[in-house]
Every structure is written in structure tokens, then in C-alpha cells.
């Protein structure tokens, strides 16, 4: 009988549902940049064959179908609002949301490599290094990079709150929209995040900073009606920061400030002595960072400067996070109480 065995090869194999069937697991494999055969072997390892009593052929055919579907949806995913209004695939809204959310999700490892870098072709070319370093497939790296770039391009010149812009245009969840806002904000100001000294910081940390910066340091923070609001730091504000220099240049002012801070913090922090001894250095570090921010180059180094000039000295003295918080609060409030700073409050 064996001689009669007819070899058959599948020329064409498609399955199209009226409601587009999308397996989340396969979607993730596709997003992660696995090839069909890799995806099949990964799925097989999950024991799916035994679970459903099926064969490798079936799994391969299923994976292929899904991959095709995803490839066809990809161009729509580039403009999520198009996905919602497209007619080609009938996808229930919650599935659409899932598709978009997952497509725009990114890997922590990847984003830390790219955060603050210019989203240019040059950076894209270096993605193979990123891929090698992070173990994320090049395909996935490219998708993530392209997502960053796409979101950046769309919201870069847009008026209004950054997070909302991202959310409206890309239909992302709150959390993801905020993350993208951070990415866009960092990419726009090109904050340096890749230095070794900054490695211990997570994306989460930077995203928090970005959120604070957007809320307090951008034009939009002051006046919602002004153009080009959330992406760029408020130039006027940065200019004004120069005036803070008086806190370290004027000896009287410095002493007055120090005594106010010390009075306020006495008994309240564990590292009081260290703080008292180091106040001048800390204040100088802070003020210098602030005063230099009109310089684009120095803006980029904002985080590295903070780490070097403020965080590291504190760390060396074993400050607790609560100590830092208390110190900075007191530092700010005391400065406001100084005579020369009354106007700051009014503005």
C-alpha cells in the first residue's frame, strides 16, 4: 500500500471568519517577531497538541492563518482610528482594543534602550544592536521603534494635552497613553537616559518624571490655550530659573535659606547632620542644574546631572527617600519665604 501513498502538498489554505478570529497567544508570538515555524514550535511546547488532540499540520495552518490576518491588520493598526472604521475585518470593539493595546505595548528592555534618543533612521539602523543586547527579535524592535516614531510624529506638533492627544489618536489605555506621552516627551527633549549611571532607573521612573515635567514645566502646564504645549519645556520658565542663582551666589541668601531649611527639618530627618554639612553643595547642585536648562545640551543631561549632583551625594550619606522628600519640600518652601523670592509665589 505504501507505494500508493500520494504525496500531497497544500497549495493554498485559508480560513476567513465573518468575525475575525484572533488568538491572543498567536498574536503575542507575532508581535514578538517570531517566524511561523518558531511560533509553531513554541505553541507545540505549550502542550496544545495534546490538549486538543490535533496535529502539527493543523497548528501550522492555524498559525499561518493568524499571521496572515495580523499582517493584513497591521497597516490598520498603524492608524488605530482606521481600524475602528475599517470595513475589511469585523472585529468586536473589545478585541479591537486588545489588538491596539498589544500592538502598542513595548518591552521595558527595549524602551530603556531607546528612551530619549532621536527617533531617526540612524537610531533605527542601530536596532540590531539593541536586539542583540536585549534578546528581543529585530522584528519586534522595529515594530516598537516604529510605534514610538509614529506616535511622536502625530502628536509632536499637536495642540492640547499630550496624554489626551496620544489617547485620541491611538485609542490607547490611560496607562499606555501616559507611557507614550513620556516617550514622546523624552524623545523631543532628547533626555539622556542611557548612561551607565542611569541604568538603575526603570522606564517607570522616567515616565513618572516625564509626567511631572509635563504637568509643571511645559507651556501647557501654565496656559492650555497656547500652542505647542505639552511637548516642549516652557522656555520662559527655564529662563526664569536662572534667577534662582541668587540662592547660591548671594552669601546671605544662602545662609538664610540654609537656616530656614535646617530649622524646618531639625529632628525630622535622620540625616540631619549630613544635610546640614552638605547643604551648600546640594543647593549649588540643584540650582546649577536649574539655571543651565536654557541650554538644550544641558537639558539632555538633566537626569545625569541630577544623579551626579544630587542623588549620588545623598546616597553616599545614606539618605532615606523620606529624608530626600522632606528636604526638597522644605528647601522649596523656605526659598519662597526668602525676601527676594516673594514674586515667585505671585506668578
Amino acid at each position: 500500500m505504501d507505494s500508493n501513498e500520494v504525496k500531497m502538498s497544500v497549495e493554498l489554505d485559508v480560513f476567513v471568519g465573518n468575525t475575525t478570529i484572533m488568538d491572543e497567544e498567536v498574536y503575542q508570538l507575532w508581535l514578538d517577531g517570531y517566524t511561523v515555524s518558531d511560533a509553531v514550535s513554541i505553541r507545540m511546547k505549550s502542550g496544545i497538541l495534546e490538549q486538543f488532540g490535533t496535529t502539527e499540520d493543523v497548528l501550522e495552518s492555524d498559525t499561518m492563518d493568524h499571521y496572515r490576518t495580523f499582517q493584513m491588520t497591521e497597516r490598520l493598526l498603524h492608524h488605530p482610528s482606521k481600524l475602528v472604521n475599517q470595513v475589511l475585518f469585523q472585529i468586536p470593539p473589545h478585541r479591537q482594543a486588545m489588538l491596539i493595546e498589544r500592538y502598542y505595548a513595548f518591552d521595558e528592555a527595549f524602551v530603556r534602550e531607546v528612551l530619549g534618543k532621536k527617533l531617526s533612521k540612524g537610531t533605527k539602523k542601530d536596532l540590531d544592536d539593541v536586539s542583540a543586547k536585549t534578546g528581543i527579535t529585530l522584528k519586534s524592535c522595529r515594530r516598537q521603534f516604529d510605534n514610538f516614531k509614529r506616535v511622536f510624529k502625530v502628536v509632536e506638533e499637536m495642540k492640547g494635552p499630550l496624554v489626551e492627544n496620544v489617547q485620541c489618536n491611538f485609542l490607547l489605555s490611560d496607562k499606555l497613553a501616559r507611557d507614550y506621552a513620556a516617550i514622546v516627551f523624552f524623545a523631543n527633549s532628547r533626555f539622556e537616559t542611557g548612561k551607565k549611571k542611569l541604568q538603575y532607573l526603570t522606564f517607570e521612573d522616567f515616565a513618572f518624571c516625564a509626567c511631572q515635567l509635563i504637568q509643571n514645566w511645559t507651556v501647557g502646564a501654565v496656559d492650555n490655550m497656547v500652542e505647542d504645549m505639552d511637548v516642549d519645556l516652557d522656555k520662559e520658565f527655564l529662563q526664569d530659573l536662572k534667577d534662582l542663582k541668587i540662592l547660591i551666589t548671594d552669601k546671605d541668601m544662602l545662609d538664610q535659606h540654609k537656616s530656614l531649611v535646617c530649622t524646618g527639618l531639625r529632628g525630622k530627618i535622620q540625616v540631619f547632620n549630613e544635610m546640614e554639612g552638605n547643604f551648600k553643595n546640594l543647593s549649588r547642585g540643584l540650582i546649577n542644574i536649574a539655571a543651565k536648562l536654557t541650554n538644550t545640551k544641558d537639558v539632555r543631561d538633566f537626569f545625569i546631572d541630577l544623579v551626579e549632583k544630587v542623588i549620588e551625594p545623598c546616597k553616599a550619606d545614606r539618605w532615606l527617600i523620606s529624608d530626600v522628600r522632606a528636604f526638597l519640600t522644605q528647601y522649596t518652601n523656605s526659598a519662597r519665604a526668602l525676601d527676594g523670592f516673594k514674586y515667585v509665589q505671585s506668578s
Partner: protein
Amino acid sequence: MPGKLKVKICAGRHLPVMDRASDLTDAFVEVKFSNTTFKTEVYPKSLNPQWNSEWFKFEVDDEDLQDEPLQITVLDHDTYSANDAIGKVYIDIDPLLCSEAATVICGWFPIYDTIHGIRGEINVSVKVDLFNDLNRFRQSSCGVKFFCSTSIPKCYKAVVVHGFVEELVVNEDPEYQWIDRIRTPRASNEARQRLISLMSGELQRKIGLKVLEMGGNAVVGYLQCFDLEGESGLVVRAIGTACTLDKISNTSAAQLPACNSPSKEIKEAPFSEDPNPNTYSSGPSTPLKNQTYSFSPSKSYSRQSSSSDTDLSLTPKTAKSPKGPRISLCPSSPTLSSDFPTLINPFQLHLGSGTTHSLTPPHSGHASPLVLRKSVSFSEDLLLAASGMGSGGSAGKDGGHLKTLLRQQTQSALEQREFPFFTLTSFPLGFLIHAGGVVSARSVKLLDRIHNPDEPETRDAWWEEIRQEIKSHAKALGCHAVVGYSESTSICEEVCILSASGTAAVLNPKFLQDGCLDCYSENRLSRQPTFFSTGSEKGEFDFFLQSKDSSSMLGLEDTSPPSCGFCHIPYDELNMPFPAHLTYCCNCRRQKVPDVLFTTIDLPVEAAVTGRGCLIQARLCRLKKKAQGEANATAISNLLPFMEYELHTQLMNKLKLRGMNALFGLRIQISVGENMLVGLASATGVYLTALPAPGGIQIAGKTPSDIAYEQHISNIQKKINDTVSRNKELYEIHPLEISEEVIGSPIPEPRQRSRLLRSHSESSDEVSELDLSHGKKDAFVLEIDDADAVEDILSLLTDAPLPTGFYSCNTENMPGIHNWTSSIQMFTTVRVFRLNNVNLTNQGLNKSFNDLCENLLKSLYFKLRSMIPCCLCHLNFTVAVPEDELIQVAATAVAMTFDKDQAQEILKSNTAPMKAISENEEQLQFPMELSSDSPSVQTFPPSKGFLENASPQTIQGTSRATSVDYSSFADRCNSWIELIKLKAQTIRRGSIKTTPSLDKASPLAEGHLRLRSTPSCTDSTVTVVKMTPLSFIPGAKIIKYLGIINMFFIRETTSLREEGGVSGFLHTFIAEVFAMVRAHVAALGGNAVISYIMKECVFMENSNKNQAQCLINVSGDAVILIRESEQEGVPIQTHGSTSQTPQSGGAPVS
């Protein structure tokens, strides 16, 4: 009579970039209808143009309105060179021509290009102003409603079922015209699309004219196909069932019975003049009936019946008909039956039960002479034998002579028709009395060029020939009609196989008579409108109760209950057209039933079924030498009977292996390729409670040579036995075996009771009883005489078992599953396989083909695993042999989930009839009206039994959302019926009855309202459109039919690799077809397509040239659905992003 077509082009969106320099498009639109063209302004530099055009008005006559599609072309304006076409939209405006369908077409249509696919969308509004006098509808076929659904549409009832309509039109295929050599592929494709669209329109108009001629207003079960005959032309043909449908509306109070039957008979009936329907039949019927019982000795049956039926027109015809027994496949083939006695052997079972004395009354009419059997040709014989056996004397239902008379009338009414065929596959309750078995005919033809498109006589003659054969086969089975009828072709080069098949059936003469009464009483009542309007409703109800009581008191209970009646043989058991093993019906114990029953129809909802059903497929490949012309045709003709036989054997074996005894929805497809024939038979197997338990399969070695061989045989036998018992578990087949004494008992027990009993037994595991049945029945013997046979048997066992939680069927209803949830998933899957082996053998080929189908099924099960527990319904494979070594298998089906836990409850509720009656108004009307309009039920047993059994049926009906309409045939006196109908309608309008379930003011308006009222946070402007190949969607109620969707698309590519290869190309195309269907339905105001089928999927590729082309033809009925239960809350139309967070909002919903 002219009409005014108005078109407004509103806007476009997502247009492709046509000007690379600006990345924008200067789009404008041409609107063309017939020979008139309008243009919009150019909307410069935008991918989302807002034209907001005026209303373009076309003044055209309605012939054009029916034939021509509205053609909308979107172009990119170019100052210096020719304008580039972006794409086209064809809109069939037929739905607007029917007052009951859509009133406006308005929505976003995908702009389609045959080379690039969908390229953005365009928002179009279309209206038609018809000069709406009633006469117009009489003169043209505008207004005739078309339904793809093969059952009476849900919100209609059939007043009259007129019968078969067919038409075909032919033309030259533009692809083969000389001009094709010089025009672009795009132009050629568009010419073809346009031509087919035109021909479809013309065909529909012509069919419509025929319907009007017959006095109907609708075509149900409309099936339109096209044959690409290549050089010889293009044939578009359609068949359907003409009906007069009445909309079930909440305003008309007394809905008159739908079963208006042929008025012709009424005049012949001696008592029809009697003005009082009450007295009308009671007198004569009772004595006759009693008389019936005296004909107990079975031997006298045929004599009695034939002597009493000498005037029956059918009998002599059947006997003499030279066509009936002639081989159906190829006239030139020799009669093979004598040459292959062994092949027929499996079917030659003894007629043992015939000697038992019983109450079986004489079979009234169809005394098929014994001679017939001999002359039945090989293939015919097999067909009949395998498909078997059919139904039993309808005579059992009522008094012999009266019945005979009635039947005679029915028959003569049907005789009048050239072809008493019905494309319906499910019927109003009581319509179908007996199903005789599958009849089919095939014929091999050589194509020649169609010289004169206006006279498609050759093709007509071919089909005529086939239909005649079908008709005579039906007669041979003692049946006067064919239901579940369909036609198909398979073409390869110049050879064409024409196939037709259906189920021979006896339709209810009593039912027809009731109809007459209805007509009559309507007539009478219409003359006394006051009486009617005041008393009718109440009276109806009273009659209902009264008749029920009295009839059960009288105990005139010999009627065949609907749950088994259709299984009873329609032919005379002593003069059977083929050998069959008859036994007494296990349900009513009165009538004879065959041991197996094959049909092409859906399982009647009222049928008593044990356990669940399952999909059964027989697959077969046969090699054929390459040949040309006549020789090729002969070779194919010679192969066909063998293929039919083998397919039937396979079906039979697989059926037995599953412990089942009947097949429904049988479709046998034989496709021809250059070097092979591929056969695929699909059906849904069930265990009909009425039919005897199937015996096991017994393996018999022909030459028991040595012990090892014996061992081998017994191993196989064991495997088979194991499989059978495993399957019985799987499909929950645990029939209750009724003890012997019941069989002999002449005392009929009340039907309700026995039904209750039965339904209990369905769930009980009475294994010992089961074994009993095993011992008693004759086993089905398979002889192993050579290696082939061993292979065959082994292949039986290779069918992979269904994964847990999955069921499948190819029919509308899955026996044993009723509690569907609203979750459905329609899908289309296509596979093409290449056979790589140069030395093909039949066996190797068979195995490969078998694997192919099994793998496809496995894939489906895997893909749809998230829907478990679910059933794949309407799983029909279509096979084609597109090229030498390619086999293409395509399927469109729907997966529906069901609620496992509720299964038992539903079963129970089936036995509580009254509850359901209150549930559904439409269905309530039926028994009520029947009883009032034909009070004769008191003495006329069949309708009594019918009534009584109608109640449980009602529940089944509701749970399956199947309409219970009833209908009958009228030919001659349609006009007369029309007259009565008109009068009746006038009366109906006078009385008011509120129907809670239908109390929605304006369904369409509501639908639109819902569309509009989508929450504004929703981004999507795309309506969710459900699709299903079935005629219903679980959990939803169809409130309006918007018209037929019949679309034909061609897609071509010259960059196959870039589009993802053949799979990528076809995947996109199928998705695009779905999208276009959905868009058209949404534009009609609908939210679902039912009875959706992909009739054609022709795929051609040339990978070397990086090219591929595909043609797809789909059809279905556009409908508006509403959710059945309000507590489910959100209406279907609120497609929006319920889970999509509000911040996603932006664009207002248009």
C-alpha cells in the same frame, strides 16, 4: 411603467493616494445607470472628499430597473492625462423595487477594484420613486420578493406554494471575446462583472414574470448559479419555488390559514359545495375509515389499492414510464444491474415483516408494479435502494377511499405541473407526508458554442431531460413530488456534468383539502363579514379546544403522528421499486418503514429523533484517462455509476458505524477534472426513532483460508463493534426498544403519552434493551474478498472522532441540540492541494483525498475550539478539480455555541405544549385556524392527530426559530384564490388583534433609530453584520427581509508574491467579499445576512507569471434582526465600542 431612480453621492473616505507628488487624490465620481451618466465635481486634494452632490435622477423603465445595476465609479482627476479609476461600486437596486423590502439604500460602500481590491469607501444614498399603482405590479415582475432561504421566511406565511420556477440565460463570456486580447485585465474583469450582474438581473426579472404568471408574489429557495463554459459561453441559471406569501403583521387580526390549497380540487370534491364545513367531511369519512381497518391481510393490499385506484393517473404512468427506470447518468450506458449482483447484495434484505397482520390500511395509490424493479438500472437501483425506502402509506392516516380520492386530487393537481419540484428543504407543519428517498440524475454533455444567446434552447433541453428523469424516479418511488430539489454542474474543458437531486415525497392531500376548506370558508365568510369579524377569533379557539377533546374522546387515533409519518413508505410494500427491508414503524407501530432513509431535505422539526446527529461524508476519487470530446464524455459516463455506488456504500457503512438510520441534507457532488473525478457526499446522520435500530456491521471473510486471516477478520470486527458502541455513547443514541406485544396491539395509545414516553426514553440508558435490538436485527454484512475491501473497511475506521464538545451537521437543524446561545461564527475556508505523485492510483488518491477532508475538519475544530460546546452547522464541502493535479475543497459554515446545561430543560419543555403556544403568536395561529376553518377534524383523523402533535411541535418551532407556515399547491384557480385572499385581507384589516411579540411599531424605523442612537463615544461607523448559512440566527428574531444579496466579484493580481502568495491573495479577497456583503446589507438598513452561501469560488493561478485570478459568487437574504430577549439589553446595532473607553471617542457617528 417608468420609475425614477435617485442617487446622491455624499462623501468618500480612506481613498488611496493617487498623486504621489502630493500624497493626495483629486477624486470625482461617475454615476451610471443604463445609458445615462452623471458626474460629481472634482473634490481636490483629499483622501476624504465631501462631494455632497445633488440628487442625480434617472428616469428609466422598470425592466431596466430590474436588469441593470447602478454603477458608481470613483476616479482621480488628472489635468494632463486620462483620469485614473480608483474603483467601482455596483449596487443592485432590486430591493428598492419591492414595497416590503428596503426603502432606501444608504451607507458606506467599499470601492472595489478588480486589481487592487478595496480602496476606500464611498457614501451613497439611493432611492427609487415608483409610480405606485397596483396594476404595475401585475404587468411586470417588479415587486416579486426573492428569498435564498429554503424554508418559508420567518415573518411570512405561505398562502400558496405554487411550485417550481426555473430560467436560464446565456451569453458570450467577455473573457473569451476577441476584444479581450487588446483590453486590460481590469477592463475585461469589469466587463464580466457587469455582464453577470446584468444577466442576474434579467434572470430574476424573468423568473419574477413566471411567478406572476403562476399567481405568486415571491420565490423561496431561490438558487442562482453560473456556469463558466469557457469558449462556449456563460450560462446563468436559477431555480426556485414560487409562492404566495403573506406578511405576518400585527395589525391583521385573524390570520387566515396559509394552506390555501389548490382550488381546482375543491370543485371536484363532491362535498365541497356544502356551505357548512362542520358537516362537510364527517359523514363520509368515518365509515370509510372503518372500512379501512378491515383490509388487514397484507397480501391483499396491493390488489385492494390498485383496484380502488384504477383511475389514479400516477399508477399507470409509473408502470409504463420508460424514463423512470432508465439509467439516470448516461442514456448510453448499459443497464448494469445484472452484471453486478454482488454489488447490490448489501441492499437485498428480506421483506420479512410483511406477513405480520396489522392495521396498516391499504396504500392508496402508488402501486408500483413489480416489473419496475427489474428494469431499474444499476445506478438508479442503488440510488433508490440506498436512499431508500421512504414512507408509508399515507393511507394510514385516514380513511382509505376518501384518502385515495384526496390523493388523487393532489396528484392530479401536481400532475398539471410540468415539474412538481420544490427547492424548499423544510416545510410548514403537515406539508410533507412521506419522504420516499433520494432521487438524483446526472448527465454528461459536450459543450458547444451557444450561437444565439436569445435562444438558450440546448441548455434548456438538457435540464428538461434531467428534470424529467427526476420526476420519473420520484414516481417509481410512489411519490408525486420532489422536495429539497437542487441542480448543479461541473465543467472541465468541454465536458459538463449536469446533476440534479431531490427527495421524492408525498405531500399532504389532506392538508390540501384543508386548504380548500379554508378557501371555501373564507369565501363563505367573506360574504358575511360581520359574522367573521365578530365570531371568528373566539370561534377559532373554541373549535380548537373542542376538536381536541372530542377527537381524543372518540379515539380515532390511527393517524400517523408527524414525528414519524414522513418516514412511512409511500410505495406499495409488495411492489417495491427496489429491495428494501421493511418493518413496522417503531413510533406508531402501524405503518411500514424502511430500515434506512436518505433525504436531501432538512430534518423535519417534528421528527422524533433519538440522540444527536452528526456529519457524515463519503469521499472518493477516481482516475480517468485524459481524453477529448466524445470519448471523454463516454469515459466519464461509464465512471459515474461506480462512483455513485461507492459513495452510497460509504455513506451506508459510515451511517451504520455511527449506529444511525437516516441521512438528511444529502448532497452528492461529483466534480470532473482532466484526469480524475472527485466525489464528495455530505449528509447529516441521525437516529430516527421511527426507524428500526440499525444492525451492526458484520465482517465476513469470503475465503477463510487460515487462522491468521480469521484472526485478522475478527480483529477488524471487534474494532468496528467498539466504534459502533463508542459512537452510540457519543451521539447519545439509546433507543427505547418497545416490546413485541406492543407491536401487535391494535389499540392505539394516545399520542401524547407515547411521545412523553419516548422523550423520557431518550435520556435513559437502557443498555440491555439496546442489546436486544442488536440481536434481533439483521446485521449489515460486509464481505471481504480482496485487499480493496479490507482497505475500504479500514478507511471506515480512520474517520477521526469529533473532539469533545464539538458536533457537526450539514443541515439547518442539529438534531438533539436546541439551546443555542447567540454566539455564532460564520466562516469560509478554502484549501487547494497538489498531488505530487506521478503514478497515481485510485487507492492512493482516495486515501489522500480522505486525509485532506479529515485534516480540513480537524483544522476547523481546532480553530473554533474557543466556542466549545459548539456545533458546526451547514458544513457543506464543495470540491473542484481546477487543474490537472489540484483538488480544491471549499466550505462555508457556521459554528454556533450551545448551552449544555439547558439541554435537558428544553427537552422537558417539549412535552409541555401549552406553554409554548403562548410564547409565539405566529405559531399559535396555525392550530387555531386550522381547527376553526376545518372543523371536520372531529371526524377526520389526520388533522386531529396533526393538531395534537402540532402542539409539541410548536415548542420545537419556537426554540429553533422556525416558522410554522403551511401551504399547498394551486395551479389552475389561482386567480380564484387571489380573489378570496383579497377579500379576506379586507376583512382582516377590520379586526384588531395585538400581538405582543410583534408589537414593535416600525421595524425598519426602529432599526434605523438604533443605528442612529449609538452612543456618541463610539468611534465606529461600521454596522456589525452577522452572517450565517442558516435561515435563522439563534436568540434573534427576524423582523424584516430587505431583499436578496447576490454578488459576483472577480479579483486578479499580477503581483501574487507581493500579496502574500496564493493564500494571502485569496484570504484578502474572501475578507473583501465579506466586507462588501456586509456593507450592502448595512446600507439596506439590515444587520444580518441569512442563508448565505458561496456558490462559486473559481481560483486560477500561474505562479510563474506571478499572477492569479479568482471569481466568487455569493448570495443570501439581507434581514433586520432584533434580539429575542430584552434582558440581554444592548441591541445588536449598538455596534460601538462598549468596552472601548470613552476617551477613544472623537468622530461623531454619522
